[in-house]
Structure formats: C-alpha cells, structure tokens
C-alpha cells in the first residue's frame, strides 16, 4: 500500500435500518448486501444525506421544486428510525508490516456505529467533528466490508403548522445545523440532513502520523520581512522509538510547471 489518502466515495449502498434484519456484524462478515443493489438496499449518496439518497433513487420527489417537499414525510411524523440508515461499502487493502490504516469521516450527522469486518466502533455525536479511526488491527488483506449505521440528530423537533424560524427550536439542543427545521427562507429538511455528509477516506501511513499542522505568518518592516511559523502534532503508533526526519518545503508556481523553491 502506498502512503497517502484514498477517497471512499464510490460503491456505497444504503438501506433503511428498519428494513434490514441483519446486524452490523453479519453485514460485514457473512451476509453483506448484494451488488448490484437488491431491495431494501439502494445506491447511496456518499458524501450526502439520507434524503439525497432517497431522491437519487426516486423514492421521493425533488424537495426544491414547487410544493413537492410537502409530499415527503417529516421526521417529526415518521420518527427518527425512518431516517436511520445503513450505509455499506467495500474497499481493498494490502498493508505491509510497518503501515497503519485510518478510516476518516470528515463529518457525520449526527452519530453512527461503524462495523468493519465484524468489529464495532462508535462514532460519537456532533455534526461538525472529524472521526479518524485506526483500523489496522481489524483490517483484512484484500477486500474489507464496511457498514455504518447513521442516526439522525437527537432532537429533530417538530414543524409548527405556521412554520417559523427553526420550527419548534428543538434542533438547537444539538450541535447541528439549525436551518433544517425551516426558516423564513427555507422549507424544513425532512431528514434534518442526516447522513455521511462530507469526505470519507482511508489513509495509509508509516509508524508516524502527521496531525493538524498549523501555519501562521508574522510580518515586519512593512511586509518586507515575513516569517512562516509551523507547528505539527506527530503521533508515533509503533512500539519502538521513531527517529524521524521532518521536512517542510514551500514552493510557488511561477508559470506553467516552473516552480520556485
């Protein structure tokens, strides 16, 4: 496996949790969904939302045309289970001995349980947080089965008949987007944007991982003298001392492929 990031944005399937009788362990071991999708499974929108998946598969009309949003059941009436969905995909891996693999979800709304090859991990609440899981120990050479059960916000609220700013305001209890209960400019989003709504990736690293570098500049002498300050977290995941060569390199494209170092 090469060091670096691979996007996991293709081949996702989805199904309403109440229509799937199997649990996450069986979905990711003995009974994965069939490809191509067979009901209740459908092609998923990842990154995206449950409502986006339902629209993609023509189970709901486009909520942004005319009054079609009225034809889609609101989570307040359907219950949270209706918009609780399984998402499933597979990916290949072939790690060498000193490599590690992380699964990264840049944002999930609102919480999730992840199953990889029969092993469960919890992705805690919060629409605006990243999840990065070291799954090296549970990875298989070749094909890996990944299922994610995504739950809607804890407090999806109800929409008063007269509408209103943020519906009944219940969504304000959660750390989530608040416009989804409807506003003066916007109809309520029926699933409250439940889903794996931003980038999903797998990253392969060696024993030392770079985490969240921070770049800051300071300016002197009327912007003629400038310093770039950079700080980085480094995580050694091996069981041995890591002697590292750490490099920073700043370039700018001048023209075409000519680079100034």
């Amino acid at each position: 496996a090469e060091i670096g990031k691979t996007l996991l944005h293709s081949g996702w399937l989805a199904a309403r949790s109440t229509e799937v009788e199997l649990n996450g362990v069986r979905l990711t071991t003995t009974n994965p969904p069939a490809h191509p999708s067979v009901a209740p499974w459908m092609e998923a929108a990842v990154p995206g939302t449950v409502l986006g998946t339902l629209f993609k598969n023509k189970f709901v009309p486009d909520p942004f045309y005319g009054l079609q949003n009225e034809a889609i059941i609101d989570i307040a009436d359907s219950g949270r289970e209706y918009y609780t969905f399984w998402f499933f995909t597979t990916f290949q891996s072939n790690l060498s001995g000193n490599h590690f693999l992380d699964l990264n979800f840049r944002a999930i709304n609102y919480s999730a349980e992840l199953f990889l090859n029969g092993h469960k991990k919890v992705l805690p609440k919060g629409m605006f947080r990243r999840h990065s899981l070291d799954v090296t120990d549970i990875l298989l050479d070749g094909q890996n089965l990944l299922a994610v059960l995504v739950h809607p916000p804890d407090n999806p609220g109800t929409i008063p008949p007269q509408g209103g700013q943020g519906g009944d305001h219940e969504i304000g209890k959660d750390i989530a987007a608040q416009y989804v209960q409807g506003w003066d400019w916007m109809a309520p989003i029926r699933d409250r944007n439940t889903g794996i709504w931003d980038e999903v990736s797998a990253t392969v690293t060696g024993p030392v991982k770079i985490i969240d570098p921070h770049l800051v500049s300071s300016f002197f002498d009327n912007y003629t003298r400038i310093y770039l300050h950079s700080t980085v977290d480094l995580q050694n995941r091996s069981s041995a001392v890591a002697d590292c060569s750490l490099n920073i390199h700043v370039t700018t494209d001048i023209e075409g492929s000519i680079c100034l170092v």
Partner: protein
Amino acid sequence: EHLQSQNVSIAPGVTIQYSFPELFFYKPKLWWPNGLGEQSLYNVSISVNVKGHGESDYWNHHFGFRKIESHIDSYTGGRLFKVNGQPIFIRGGNWILSDGLLRLSKKRYETDIKFHADMNFNMIRCWGGGIAERPDFYHYCDIYGLLVWQEFWITGDCDGRGDPISNIDGPQDHKLFLLCATDTVKLLRNHPSLALWVGGNEQTPPDDINSALKNYLQLHPHFKYSNES
C-alpha cells in the same frame, strides 16, 4: 531557503507537538482579497521519514501570506477590517450553504464562489444556522479572494428567542459544542480566506462557551506585536 529538515525522535505510542524553526521570506507575494490584488498562494508541504521505514506521512496545503485585522468602530458600531495594513471596504454576501441536500461538489463550490467574486464581493458570511463550511469551500475562497466570516452554530431563534422562547443556555451539551468548535478551527485554520470567527448569529453563545471560544481563538502574544521594525 524555504526547505528545511529537522531530526526528531519520538517515543513509542506517544504524540508530540513540534514547531519548526521559523522560515524567513523576503518580500513574498501577499494574498489580497478580491479587487485589491492577486491571491498569491504558496504550496506548503510537510513530510516525515522514519529511519528504517522510509516515508511515513505527508501533508500539503495552499498558504497565503496575509494579515487580517478587525475591530468594532466606536463611532459607527460597525466592524472595520484591514488586510495587509490596508483598510478595506467590505462588500459581502450572506451564505447558508450550497445545497439543502448537501450535494457539495467542488464544481458547485467553484461556480458559486466565482459568482460571488464576479459580483465584486470580497466577503462571504457563513450564517450560524447553517454549516461550518467545508475545506473545498475555503479552497475556492482562497483562489477567488473572498474573505470568510464563519459563525458557530448558535442562532437567536433556536437559542434564546422564538415562540415559545427557546433555551437561552442552548445547546444542551456545551462540552460537545466546544469539541466540535475546536475541531472545526483545526480543519479550517490554514486557509488565507478565513477572516473572522463569530460565536453565533445575532447573539453571543452562553457565557461559558463564549469565554472558552474567546480564549481558544485569541491571538498568541507572539503575533500581537509583529510588523514592527
């Protein structure tokens, strides 16, 4: 002069924080907002090689040299901005998000943000009832010179107002709010277009959240007195 290597030793199972010695630049091209100059971007790459293993990890990011200052003007009550020492007249647009089904493609972001630049705007304000915008959004704001005013997830109508009146101490889990806030800051902080963090829409968050955010986001003293000879 802009390539630097350092040797670091890390104990097993440990995470360390490492600061490179600062890199010096003489008259680098500055990043300017739309209409004031070019949006010069440098590519910063950081890599780590481990003895006996080879390359272990790498990271790349576009970076722009710019200094953004702002303060509330006591006479008008409005917020005044300076970029690279120059006062800038803000022509801004309000933004919730690109699509209600969160179909947030790069192509869509580029089109939307270029449209704002073509309208001669130089700032986008991301409303607190929407989302913390994504790195792709910020990437195109970097490219097209749109400053970003990013609010956290507090609105008057869901947190303290409305009919019936909502919980003024909302959201329920303050610790989770701060965890999400700090993680979002880490996700977006290197974008030159990022101009201002705001606690929420039309109000401040509950006191404990507000003071924690202020404390977390305050400028390090080292950078308060820069631009002196």
